[in-house]
């Protein structure tokens, strides 16, 4: 076992992780000489933030009619009133400076003729405030952050290091254990402060816009360290995933004016959101598409056996498409041989985002089972749940959360080290040795058992796709819970056929699957308990929002026989919940 000492260890290198790393180094400017470890299971710059497409919301030019109040209202109404309003209020203010900061670091935002930044419409917005760089917004943001990070010296990159556990003793963070995939060696990152920025868990499902790497490792790490997960039953389905794979077709397509059309050639959104039409929030549009399909107005795709509706961009014209949606055109051509200039795209909802996540406070500090902070541990981005998005995130509010919370957490980490001057932790060796034995002895070294990692993963994806989808029912969710339980039992008997140390993806996938099974159980059980419909959680057997009983956050803790649930209040500081009509 190799021990690596750092002041700050950051796991995950998407927008939130990179932004946090930069903020710590930028604040420090060598004053304390803080050393930062930037750890990713991928190569840096491969994280899934690169696939964010349509835009990043912020109030840029209030003199033209936008305001912080309006952005906060849109976000809170979009959340179906499950967002913590104090956190939203802070978030909308910091987003503005972040857009301009990363502009000056290099993001090529689309511009107006006078050289200022262009913005466009997105679902659920009252003002066109989605700031964008073509339809590769997340990609350009990642480029600017990665490049900016390269100019700093006081950090080391740990590409392709898979973190296996968070070391916590006496409510104090003491580091991360990891496997260096290149050598197969076991590592202990000993650090004074830790940040989890590992993104979401789309891979629980078969049809998802999320990367093969989005396996929810951060959720699994926290849950297995005895830390609570919050609101995990709220899984966002993006309305427009390309059939069959679910590749993301950005909401900006509808922001620029695209139509959703059913089998009969009807713009069906007029039935579901007459004033916002295609630009209603994602939960509403996804439900509308599934309803059309369920009621027989979808189109059948022979190749995949899936039903879909059409996303029609033909009327936008070639010039606008080339300027504002070039990547969507490339995706259509490369994956289906369809040019969106001449033909509509077949789309259906695709799993896109986890509103829930690691339970954190307004500063991104990770909270323990009692609701008080774990000393020295933070989480940011999709891995964390503050909650800014409540039960439904608005499109264009994901990348800005990563930037804003990268900034907030970077500063909070720095303040903590500057003020408290913590020493390097000394955990008991038993914890580290037990973790090493779990991975290399109990999982890699096991010679008995006949279960296959990929078979279990397949069955898990089918279960989630079938029973924990856009529309849910009590009986479906019960089936999911039983099946997941069975898969968890079978997981104990997996046997790896790759016994090598160098780039043993079989081992990595086995560890990811362990996390995925835990998360799936939390999602399905949480969804079964929540007997109402709110945001992305739509129960056919409980079709209405129930503020009297369910205006509260779900908290899930790992117990001996699966997750234990409790509930905490939503922070309502500005607007009382009202009916959500678009």
């Amino acid at each position, binding site marked *: 076992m190799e021990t690596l000492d750092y002041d700050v260890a950051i796991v995950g290198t998407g927008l939130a992780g990179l932004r946090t790393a930069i903020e710590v180094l930028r604040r420090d400017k060598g004053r304390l000489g803080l050393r930062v470890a930037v750890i990713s299971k991928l190569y840096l710059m491969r994280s899934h933030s690169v696939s964010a497409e349509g835009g990043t919301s912020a109030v840029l030019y209030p003199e033209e009619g936008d305001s912080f109040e309006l952005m906060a209202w849109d976000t809170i109404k979009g959340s179906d009133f499950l967002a913590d309003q104090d956190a939203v209020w802070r978030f909308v203010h910091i987003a503005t400076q972040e857009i301009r900061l990363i502009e000056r670091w*290099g993001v090529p935002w*689309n511009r107006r003729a006078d050289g200022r930044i262009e913005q466009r419409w997105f679902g659920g917005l009252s003002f066109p405030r989605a700031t964008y760089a073509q339809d590769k917004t997340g*990609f350009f943001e990642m480029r600017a952050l990665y490049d900016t990070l390269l100019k700093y010296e006081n950090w080391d990159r740990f590409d392709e290091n898979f973190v296996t556990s968070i070391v916590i003793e006496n409510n104090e963070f003491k580091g991360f254990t990891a496997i260096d995939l290149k050598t197969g060696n076991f590592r202990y990152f000993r650090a004074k402060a830790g940040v989890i920025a590992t993104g979401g868990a789309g891979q629980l499902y078969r049809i998802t816009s999320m990367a093969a790497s989005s396996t929810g490792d951060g959720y699994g790490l926290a849950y297995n360290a005895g830390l609570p997960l919050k609101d995990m039953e709220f899984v966002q389905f993006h309305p427009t995933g390309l059939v069959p794979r679910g*590749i993301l077709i950005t909401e900006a397509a509808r922001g620029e004016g695209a139509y959703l059309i059913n089998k009969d050639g009807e713009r069906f959104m007029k039935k579901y959101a007459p004033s916002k039409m295609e630009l209603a929030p994602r939960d509403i549009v996804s439900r509308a598409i599934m309803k059309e399909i369920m009621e027989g107005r979808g189109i059948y795709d022979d190749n995949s056996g899936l039903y879909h509706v059409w996303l029609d961009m033909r009327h936008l014209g070639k010039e606008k498409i080339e300027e504002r949606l070039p990547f969507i055109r490339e995706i259509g051509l490369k994956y289906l041989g369809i040019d969106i200039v001449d033909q509509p795209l077949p789309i259906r909802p695709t799993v896109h985002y986890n509103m829930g996540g690691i339970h954190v406070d307004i500063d991104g500090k990770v909270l323990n089972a009692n609701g008080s902070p774990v000393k020295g541990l933070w989480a940011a981005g999709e891995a964390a749940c503050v909650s800014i998005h409540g039960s439904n995130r608005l499109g264009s509010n994901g990348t800005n959360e990563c930037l804003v919370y990268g900034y907030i957490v970077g500063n909070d980490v720095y303040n903590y080290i500057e003020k408290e001057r913590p020493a390097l932790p000394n955990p008991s060796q038993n914890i580290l040795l037990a973790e090493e034995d779990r991975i290399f002895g109990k999982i890699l070294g096991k010679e008995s058992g006949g279960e296959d990692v990929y078979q279990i993963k397949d069955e898990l994806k089918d279960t989630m796709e079938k029973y924990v989808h856009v529309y849910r029912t009590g009986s479906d969710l019960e089936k999911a819970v039983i099946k997941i339980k069975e898969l968890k039992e079978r997981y104990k008997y997996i046997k790896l056929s790759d016994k090598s140390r160098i*780039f043993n993806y079989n081992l990595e996938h086995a560890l990811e699957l362990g996390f995925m099974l835990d998360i799936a159980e939390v999602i399905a059980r949480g969804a079964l308990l929540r007997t109402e419909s709110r945001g992305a959680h739509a129960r056919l057997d409980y079709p209405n929002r129930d503020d009297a009983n369910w205006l509260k956050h779900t908290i899930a803790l790992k117990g001996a026989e699966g997750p234990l649930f409790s509930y905490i209040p939503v922070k309502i500081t500005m607007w009382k919940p009202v009916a959500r009509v678009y």
Partner: protein
Amino acid sequence: MKVRIRRFDGQKAWWQDYEVDAKPSDTVLDILNRIREKHDHTLAFRQSCQMGSCGSCGMVINGLPALACQTRISELKTESIRLEPLYNYKVIKDLVVDLTDFVNKHRSVKPWMIRKNPQELEEAPMEFKVTPDQNLTFVQFDYCIMCGLCLAACPTVAIDPLFLGPQALAQAYRYIADPRDEGFEERIEILDDSHGVWRCHFAGACSYVCPKGVDPAKAIQYLKKEVLKYRLLHKKKASVKPAELIQKPPPANAPKPPPFDFKIEGGE
């Protein structure tokens, strides 16, 4: 479908054949995942986004460097597929290559925004003024996803391991062509070198294989022009005029959401 893969386990290399079910709409990455999940768990290859934006799955497909996730097997028009790790890199295992040199070369050209007054980058209240036309002068070179295909295709990289290579040079030009950047003089000694821009003899293979249309070969020719102007005409900066910061406009009234139900404390 028959798939032949060049494998390596750290000590020995060999060709291995697989027979896999395939649909015309499958990508090479779909096929690789099928092999790993159903046939051979030991096969190593990188992947992540599965949509051509993360740059993980670069490999040599039927002799040509390409992204596995963006190559549909129907396009290949061959009965079988032959897969190899990217050329010009050290192989670690199977289709996984060592990118350490690659990322170091990229970093060596100072690929970040440089201003004469660094405060402008960190503390200015507003953005730089950049017109849509000015955006077009550099944005193409900002499409780089760092997949490394261009170095695998480059005949010069094959004979000169110290050559900065098309990726790093194109990124140097990305910043030099950006009106917000003033770092030309800081980069010139790195570029004006026998392993820098002058090593490129314009084979153009980099641009041919680039999956994102970056056209590194073009960027390198532009760089040569800038370096010559600097050396021969003693121009102290790139031919791009630096952008200025936009001034903060006066605040104005905005339309209002519903009034607050509660009294709130101010924000940041």
